[in-house]
């Protein structure tokens, strides 16, 4: 079992509960898409799986380890086996593409190797091999601030592919790409994951892309799993229930706000609310 969540909850420092009582299993080599409306907790879930966040409740197992119980050294080793593709790749604007890609393997490189590679890139063929299928090998020595959003996303993908992680996570990896490129990139990610036999978990906004490229779909809403089934079995009802929450949420607000009697005069209403605003 690559990923196992047992009643995992996550509450952000501000008190916002992003994930509640999540129970999930993803086996080795599975390719899973996480879909759901904005604010459903997709990014939080991926950060949790990438050990960038620790669960505030429940049990989390990643590649056979419990990250919350690991010592610094063990956590570092686990982290080199997990690669997270960010929606907007956090690359320094002045860094060259080659350096940004090679940084993917810093976890397994010695410090002296990292230092030398900073001055003179040590594995140019390796980086080129990752950028080539993404159609970016001509940008190898270009600075990151000269790339478009879609190109930058592909550099981020190339870095994580270069890392050779056992667990590939992708947070909206194609959000800045045109439809054709997005399709091509997702197909590539899936093919590489299948070739390497690694697990792939990606969050996506585009439902059609998720259904087309992934074997299994997890629908996330308000920090809960709404459905979790093979993509062939995802019905239109599932999807409308997943995304029809805009009007529902507004109704819900009306229901949980009963302390505003309709008969009250406007003047008193203002008097009552004004001090609270200040």
């Amino acid at each position, binding site marked *: 079992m690559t990923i196992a969540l047992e009643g995992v909850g996550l509450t952000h420092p501000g008190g916002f509960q992003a994930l509640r009582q999540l129970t999930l299993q993803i086996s080795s080599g599975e390719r899973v898409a996480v879909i759901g409306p904005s604010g459903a907790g997709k990014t939080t879930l991926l950060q949790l799986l990438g050990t*960038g966040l620790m669960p505030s409740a429940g049990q989390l197992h990643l590649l056979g380890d419990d990250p919350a119980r690991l010592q610094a050294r063990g956590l570092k080793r686990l982290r*080199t086996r997990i690669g*997270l593709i960010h929606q907007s790749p*956090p690359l*320094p604007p002045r860094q060259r593409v080659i350096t940004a890609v090679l*940084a*993917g393997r810093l*976890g397994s490189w010695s410090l002296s190797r990292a230092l030398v590679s900073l001055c003179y890139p040590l594995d140019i063929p390796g980086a080129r091999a990752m950028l080539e299928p993404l159609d970016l090998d001509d940008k190898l020595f270009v600075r990151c601030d000269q790339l478009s959003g879609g190109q930058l996303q592909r550099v981020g993908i190339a870095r994580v592919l270069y890392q050779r*992680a056992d667990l590939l996570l992708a947070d909206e990896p194609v959000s800045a790409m045109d439809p054709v490129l997005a399709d091509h990139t997702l197909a590539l990610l899936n093919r590489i994951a299948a070739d390497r036999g690694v697990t792939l978990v990606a969050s996506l906004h585009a439902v059609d892309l998720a259904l087309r490229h992934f074997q299994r779909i997890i629908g996330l809403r308000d920090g809960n799993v709404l459905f979790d089934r093979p993509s062939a079995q995802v019905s239109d009802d599932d999807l409308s229930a997943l995304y029809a929450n805009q009007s529902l949420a507004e109704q819900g607000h009306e229901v949980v706000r009963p302390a505003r009697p309709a008969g009250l005069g406007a003047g008193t209403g203002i008097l009552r609310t004004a001090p609270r605003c200040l």
Partner: protein
Amino acid sequence: MSKRLEALLWVMALIAALVASFSYLEMDLAGLFRSDSATQMLGYTQAFFPPDLSSGWLRQIFHGALETLAISAIGTLLAGLSGAALSLLAAGRLGRLAKASSRLLLNTLRSVPELVWAALMVLAAGLGPFAGTLAIALHTTGVLGRLFAEALENVPTAPAKALRDSGAGPVAAFLYGTFPGVLPQWVAYSLYRWENNIRMAAVLGFVGAGGLGQMLYVTLSLFQQPQAISVIIAMLLMVLLVDALSAWLRIRLA
């Protein structure tokens, strides 16, 4: 009405302070405009001309200018290195105690002017360029350390965090994630301080810390005005040249 009275009182107090300052300093301003003062000034100015352009003196000036350049360059380089090290502490990367103590150190280094450092260093290290270099390095460390730390605090943290999350060690994550973000600012600050330090290095010689300033001080003390004016012209040329060079470099780096 009372406001006007108050304003009037303030003006009177200012005038009184000015008059008191003049009488305390015993300044003889009228002396500037006496009948023979113009001819005296002209005579003193004429003593500077023509400038001494003999090849021997020019060679000495050239060596002095090189010494001034070297003092400012090495001083700024040392300050850049130690400022970078201290800025890591001052930006709170290694705990709160280190942050507080390094800030105190940087503030102390910065609040003592270069000339005072030079006077102290001449006592500690003896007359000559070494004292000047140390003086510039000490003051500039305080300035650059503070500026570098501010750049470190404002740089985005996401790149380094992403590298840590993929297993990179803290030093590697800093070098690949944070350093590229601060380096352009660090270089720009260092160049600007170097420009200031060249001017300062030309003056430091007055307290015996080497370079063109020391030549100027010696020639003026020995009433060798033609030699002194060549040194002054050399200083002017050097500062103009460095200003132009540094402006060009900063435009290229931006």
